[in-house]
């Protein structure tokens, strides 16, 4: 079905077009493109509800690769997330002045195209191409529009992820040469090739591939690029990074790693879960002592990603299903968080928590939104975070590992710590003494719309999560035999 290809082509072409638009037309074009993509994604979601959609076109047959796309429950969920987040970002950024708007919006759209491609590709080489293509625009976005330490920080991020992807590429080539043909990179072929290798081969191939994904997520100890990059990036880019790009890592583990290297996964899963849990506790502790609000949320994101990754490697239906649900929810929640942070920063001119206070009196509507999103972030019942996190813990608890109970208990500590730092942050920002300096205006219309979209999703999926569960359940049932 050609429509899936359009999901990539529309952002790509409008991105290229945006480079040549002068002035305010750029953001208009970007918003228009994101709306069209969103509508199309919604259609693809409904069309792929019954059975996955596929699309295939020959590309380089003698290399065994083709342009083949697959829209199943998991990929459409993430495409939907990408479209929603991009739309929200463009709406909230509407009244902000950006230098060189044409380049900024063009690169954002190109990043969107890359992300869509990663989520839809069902050919390993195509997947790799999009994986890198999503990175290049983000590199330029961070380096051009970021904070004062942006160049060194972004460069570290780029080299880290590039190294990881190269290692992944070597693993993919190794899998592809197992049976050379016209389709040696197709998903089915990679999975078949990988699962017929010996246990020893699967174990080291796992290492090569997992490093790439672990850097992207990021998993302790590969996380060191993340807080700096989130802090230094401009907010729209931070959103793209934390809501969407980190999902590429989780997505890739579920789509490419779990099915193709089952024995490697079995061998390493305990190690990975231990790393994830160290990451959860470590990041939560660090989050508690941060005074910079952006860094606080960055560390909390590491903790959340760690929990999701641990649930993936528990290898239970419940855990996997929970991860798919939570990938969507985390993307929505963290977008809301960053939006509020950027609104606060633009009004008060600071990100230092010790200098904040009294948001509830100066900007009550913003404070309410902030509190709701914070609750969703700590997975309070009736917010979208709850159902996902519940399933994640349930999954870890059901896991095959002999240590599953201790995993569950220590990971649970992360929730408590999460509540501690999130509520402390809410208290410091929203209540207490009013801040003297800075503008005291409440939400502008576009900010209001952007936050309203987020909050509606938060509450709607918190009360009635069934549509999201149904979307992803089909995929889970054929993932694990």
């Amino acid at each position, binding site marked *: 079905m050609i429509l899936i290809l359009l999901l990539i082509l529309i952002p790509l072409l409008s991105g290229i077009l945006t480079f040549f638009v002068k002035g305010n037309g750029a953001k208009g074009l970007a918003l228009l493109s994101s709306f069209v993509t969103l509508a199309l994604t919604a259609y693809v979601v409904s069309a792929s509800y019954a059975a996955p959609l596929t699309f295939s076109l020959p590309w*380089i047959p*003698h*290399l065994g690769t083709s342009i083949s796309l697959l829209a199943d429950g998991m990929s459409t969920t993430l495409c939907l997330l990408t479209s929603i987040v991009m739309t929200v970002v463009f709406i909230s950024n509407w009244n902000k002045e950006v230098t060189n708007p044409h380049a900024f919006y063009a690169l954002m759209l190109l990043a969107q195209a890359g992300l869509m491609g990663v989520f839809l590709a069902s050919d390993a080489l195509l997947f*790799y*191409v999009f994986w*890198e*293509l999503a990175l*290049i625009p983000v590199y*330029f976005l961070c*380096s*051009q529009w970021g904070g004062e330490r*942006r*160049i060194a920080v972004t*460069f570290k991020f*780029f*080299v880290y992820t*590039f*190294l990881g992807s*190269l*290692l992944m*590429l*070597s693993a993919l*080539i*190794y899998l592809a*040469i197992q049976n*050379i043909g016209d389709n040696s990179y197709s998903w089915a072929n990679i999975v078949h090739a990988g699962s017929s290798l010996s246990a020893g081969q699967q174990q080291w191939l796992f290492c*090569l591939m997992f490093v790439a994904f672990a850097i992207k997520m990021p998993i302790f100890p590969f996380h060191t690029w993340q807080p700096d990059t989130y802090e230094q990036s401009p907010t729209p880019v931070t959103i793209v990074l934390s809501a969407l790009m980190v999902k590429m890592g989780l997505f890739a583990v579920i789509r490419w790693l779990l099915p193709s290297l089952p024995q490697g996964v079995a061998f390493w899963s305990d190690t990975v879960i231990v790393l994830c849990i160290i990451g959860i506790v470590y990041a939560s502790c660090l989050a508690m002592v941060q005074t910079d609000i952006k860094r606080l949320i960055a560390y909390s994101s590491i903790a959340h990603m760690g929990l999701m990754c641990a649930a993936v490697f528990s290898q239970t239906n419940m855990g996997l299903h929970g991860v798919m649900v939570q990938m969507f929810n985390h993307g929505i929640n963290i977008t809301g968080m960053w939006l509020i942070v950027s609104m606060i920063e633009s009004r008060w001119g600071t990100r230092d928590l010790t200098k904040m206070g009294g948001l509830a009196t100066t900007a009550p509507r913003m404070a309410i939104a902030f509190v709701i999103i914070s609750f969703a972030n700590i997975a309070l019942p009736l917010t979208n975070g709850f159902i996902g996190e519940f399933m994640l813990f349930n999954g870890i608890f059901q896991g095959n590992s002999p240590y599953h109970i201790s995993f569950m208990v220590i990971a649970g500590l992360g929730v408590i710590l999460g509540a501690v730092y999130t509520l402390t942050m809410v208290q410091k920002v929203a209540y207490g003494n009013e801040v003297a300096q800075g503008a005291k205006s409440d939400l502008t219309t576009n900010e209001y719309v952007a936050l309203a979209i987020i909050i509606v999703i938060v509450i709607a999926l918190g009360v009635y999560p069934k549509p999201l569960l149904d979307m992803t359940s089909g995929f889970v049932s054929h993932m694990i035999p």
Partner: protein
Amino acid sequence: MKAIIAATILGIIMMFAGFMSKDKKAVTTLATLLMVALFGVSIWEVMDTPASAPVSLFHDMLRIDHYALWFNMLMAGCATLYILLVGKEIRKIGSYVSEYFALIFFILCGVFLLTSYNNMLMLFLGIEILSIPQYILAGSDKRNLKSSEASLKYFLMGAFSTCILLMGITLLYGATGTFSILSFSFLSADMVNPMALAGIILIMVAFAFKVSAAPMHMWTPDVYDGSPTPFTAFMATIVKVSVFIAFLRLFHASFGTISTRWTLALSVITAATLLIGNVTAVFQQSVKRMLAYSSIAQAGFMLFAILSVNATAWQGIVIYAVAYTVATVGMFSVLMKLKDYTYDGFNGLAKKQPLLAFYTTIFLLSLAGIPLTGGFMAKYYVLFAAMQQGQLLWLIIFALLMAAISVYYYFRVIIAMYFKEGNAELEVEVTGADKFLMGLTCIIIILIGVLPQLFLNNV
């Protein structure tokens, strides 16, 4: 054969053109036209020769097959692009412009010999025809001390490596009693004459000299840095990749059967080349010198094609040759526009010349091997070939680590252009024609990255 004859005749015409006209511009135009003619002749020859039947000439000393012709055509195309991009700069080097162009035609004649030799004598002849004009070109900026130094250094080192090659050929002749390269393939792994083996190792060392593989790379940075920039661009690209074809032909077609005997030595050379090329490039302050080390690093990747004795390697080296040549020539053509060759010279170029900076970014992304550029496909092909060969996994992982390092020095230029404040000063004006040609170069790079099969034509 047509291309070899054409290159010689056109070279002679170029030489005599110097007597006819003292107008440098007219001479440059003539050279461009003749190069296009050479490109045309090589296309004609590809079309004219059936793919299945190689032409054998001079008692089988030359064996011109489809692969060789296709590669010749690509190199003639690259040379045309090169002349178009840097022809104006060659004019500025000295007063004997027509001779420089003539020497370039003679080098191409050597290139065409190297792609189709079937006899060690032809290999030697090709290498010499290729090298001697380069020694002259390296020293063509006569009043510049660095240029003279480069020329002398290149000549001494080149002569030295030629001696090693000759010694290798002699030993091999002693062991086998023949110069014909196809006769060597009877060498079998379990019973190799030690004399033949010593000969093979010496030939490998000589080739390593010519392609500037470590530890025989010492001459490269000084020669590339000292030579006039237009000629550096030629030596580092077309000449180097053509020597690789000769390297590949000999080691696969003749010594392929005993590859286990020489793979280890060549793997060590490859690892050393990658390490020294990439790590040293990081510490350079001059972009021109960085490109010299980058050419060493890229040679390390091309050595993978020699290491992997299979059909993918033959395709990979063609893709690598074109992708690397086009991107490097493009990069040098940008460099020649600038006044200051250090990284600081690029500061703020994006504000002053957005299009030029964009093109430079594409060239650099290709050199770094980012997907959708030719550089990615090139690296992909050679690594795929090496993976198929097996047993080289440690080297592949090492090469990937080195590729990540290479991002550091390539992206430093991008960072300087886009994210640093500065006023990049141009030495010469960037004309519309320049922009068009660089844009064409970028399109070729993207085309290799997206549809590499167009550049292979079933070779």
